[in-house]
């Protein structure tokens, strides 16, 4: 028994390492093929994010919101729902927070308190909107993938409209808000970088989510519903309630991510297309095997890959899209349960036989 368990754990580990190696090998091979200076390209891609303070700052600047959207998506993914509303509420929350901050510039509140209020408002807005696809799924059986994606576009246009009509900056050539007032900016932890105090919020969120996951009955219920709904039903768990809360929590964490990102990194609101941060949250959750305690690892890995890709893009002749292909390969291989499954099954077969043999003698 123990051996079979170890075999499974071992394969999980080997699988992830092998996935990374294969994806890297493919990428490197392709880089070598398409660029004149492959060594330079590989260097930028693999080491680039760690070469300067500013670049590492960029990495952390992505890592912070990934912590939040990734945690949020852990709830959604663990409940076996594919609700992508995290993407839409990310922008919406950032937008609402930006507008409130700009309209109330110079407010007579201590900055820390005002920032806290803004973050809470952003989170609540996200939760409220997140309730829509969740209710539609659990009460009306409308598939959450469809409704959340549709809603994401509605939210995108809503934010564009709000920015245009309320706080648009007419001095700039693109659509964006006027500058955010100084008092709402999250403190930079390292000057001249994107490393800001939102890091603590992100890490705190991971802790809170881990507590909810494993230390409350709600977390238990969500995980059981996501794992086997029939069993949840027989166990007398209120399935609809657990799943709705899971999806709303997912939206709330994502929305907090949007608010933190806006106040931490940006001078003005200018997300006029979907940010992909919500979708990336799902990738983080996949990489973390839907365990919030692993989100920092998953978030860091993705932030690292995304930053490397960006650097590669502006330093060499390799297009960004190409690197995204490679990232997709990594994620696919990690997510694919059956990768190397054949070897695993052969091993388990041998162990099961062995065990039976031992029992018989």
């Amino acid at each position, binding site marked *: 028994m123990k051996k079979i*368990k170890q075999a499974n754990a071992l394969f999980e580990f080997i699988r992830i390492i092998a996935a990374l190696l294969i994806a890297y090998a493919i990428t490197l091979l392709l880089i070598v093929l398409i660029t004149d200076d492959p060594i330079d390209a590989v260097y930028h891609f693999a080491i680039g994010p760690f070469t300067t303070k500013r670049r590492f700052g960029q990495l952390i600047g992505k890592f912070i919101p990934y912590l939040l959207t990734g945690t949020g998506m852990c709830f959604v993914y663990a409940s076996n729902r594919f609700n992508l509303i995290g993407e839409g509420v990310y922008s919406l929350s950032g937008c609402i927070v930006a507008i409130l901050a700009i309209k109330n510039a110079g407010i007579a509140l201590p900055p820390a308190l005002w920032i806290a209020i803004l973050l809470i408002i952003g989170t609540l807005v996200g939760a409220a909107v997140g309730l829509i696809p969740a209710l539609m799924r659990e009460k009306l059986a409308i598939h959450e993938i469809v409704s959340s994606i549709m809603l994401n576009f509605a939210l995108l246009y809503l934010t564009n409209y709000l920015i245009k009509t309320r706080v648009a900056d007419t001095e700039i050539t693109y659509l964006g808000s006027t500058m955010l007032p100084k008092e709402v900016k999250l403190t930079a932890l390292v000057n001249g970088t994107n490393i800001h105090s939102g890091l603590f919020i992100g890490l705190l969120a991971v802790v809170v989510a881990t507590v909810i996951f494993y230390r409350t009955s709600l977390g238990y219920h969500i995980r059981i519903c996501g794992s*086997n709904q029939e*069993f*949840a039903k*027989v*166990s*007398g768990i209120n399935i609809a309630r657990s799943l709705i809360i899971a999806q709303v929590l997912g939206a709330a964490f994502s929305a907090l991510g949007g608010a933190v990102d806006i106040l931490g990194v940006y001078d003005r609101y200018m997300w006029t297309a979907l940010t992909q941060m919500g979708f990336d949250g799902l990738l983080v959750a996949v990489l973390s095997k839907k365990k919030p305690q692993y989100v920092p690892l998953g978030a860091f890995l993705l932030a690292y890959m995304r930053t490397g890709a960006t650097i590669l893009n502006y330093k060499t002749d390799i297009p960004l899209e190409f690197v995204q292909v490679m990232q997709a390969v990594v994620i696919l291989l990690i997510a694919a349960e059956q990768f190397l499954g054949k070897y695993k099954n052969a091993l388990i077969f041998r162990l099961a036989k062995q065990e*039976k043999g031992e029992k018989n003698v």
Partner: protein
Amino acid sequence: MSEDILSMEHITKVYENGFIANEDVSLSVRKGEIHALVGENGAGKTTLMNILFGFIPYQEGRILINGEEVHITGPLDAIEKGIGMVHQHFMQMPSLTVAENVVLGMEPVRGVIFDRQEAAKITQEISDKYDLKVNADDIVADLPIGLRQKVELLKALVRNCKLLILDEPTAVLTPQETEELFVQLKELKKNGFSIIFISHKLEEVMKLCDRVTVLRRGRSVGSGEIKDLTTAELSKMIVGRDVVTEIEKEKSEPKKDILSVEGLRCKNKDYVEVVKGIDLKVRAGEILGVAGVEGNGQVEVAEAITGMLIPSGGNIRINGKNIRGKTIKQIKDLGLSYISEDRLKYGCAPLMPIRENLMADRIDRKEYKKFGLFLDRKKIDDEVKQLIREYEIKCDDGEEEIRMLSGGNIQKVIVAREMSSGANLIVANQPTRGIDVGTTDLIRKTLIRKTREENVGVLLITSDLNEVLELSDRMIVMKDGQIVAHFNDVKKVSDEQLGEYMLGIRKMSPEEMEGLS
């Protein structure tokens, strides 16, 4: 040998969780025969057929078709090699027409356009040829089950399959539809087709088939000509007691009624009435055994009591309270525990740790919480540890996923949870099926201890003769959705007598069944 269209030799299949579903199984089918593959639920019949159809890989053994060894790579390959399968659960596109379903994957075209008329023509031709009457233009979703099954058969026939596998085809049919199917199968046999017919209904096998192979607990335990076998011999092979064990138990002293069922009627998913008005009661301190060949309404009775199935008539009371209109949780709270026959589907969450599985039904109780919010980890850990010890669950620490355990240990987890929930009514459905001897013993002893020491009432549904005879204080037999026998003194019942009631050869009158309700 040469007349064998198929032979599967020494097949062994281990599922990913280490469960050995087929072990050294052999099966040979002759040309032009209807070969029965019988065995209880979980014996490994579907697994064996999925292997043959190329659905799942196997680890050992070989498959020969017409004497030649073959490697079947997938369902398409199987069809290519002349093997067609009618699955237990149909694989159809309900929104398409009969013709469209029949030709799916081999659509006739005119240019690049799907040729609807040709499809209908092909379908009608094959339907006429084998006298499987269907209307090619009907939408599949609108058809009754019997006709949908014919569509599946046609799908195999139109692809020129010579060996047809029917996985429990009669489970979903009415008696009339079953009759009709048998006529058609015999017709196909005359036309030279070979058929593997899976069932656990003996009457059907005796009536329809030429030869039989019996699986029990993943192994082939025998095969032979039907005409050389009696129903009794066959039933003995299927349910047979491997060993007659005697369990010591004190005489029960039943007290108040815990469960009472009056005039219960239930329909299954396909709206067929499968429980036809039954009355029974279970009293505190006794085990009521429900014997019967599987599929005679036992599962539905259990599901009605637990609230998973809404009865079409009758009343169920648990500890005096009618359960009508109550949620599953409310019913549980009346004092009910349920050990389901399908342990992976209803009994546990396979991908979750043992710990979570042990606590699933009670985690929101106040006693496990600190400050009314956070789980009291220590209390939970203590309880988990204690249950693991008490029920001898073989694991490291309870943190591993439950699917890593052997079937016996998974069942121990389920039993541990259900027995410790504080309920005073336990509905146990096939609690020891497919489980090793040691665990079986532990589960049976626990059931007896619960009734004798803690005044619990048990409704024990089982197709294991040994179990029902050894454990029950009183016993009923179900056949075709009705209770056909009730015994106040189980000790006096012989295997033969029980067999006759189970197979519908005898039936008690209401007067003979005194003390039933």
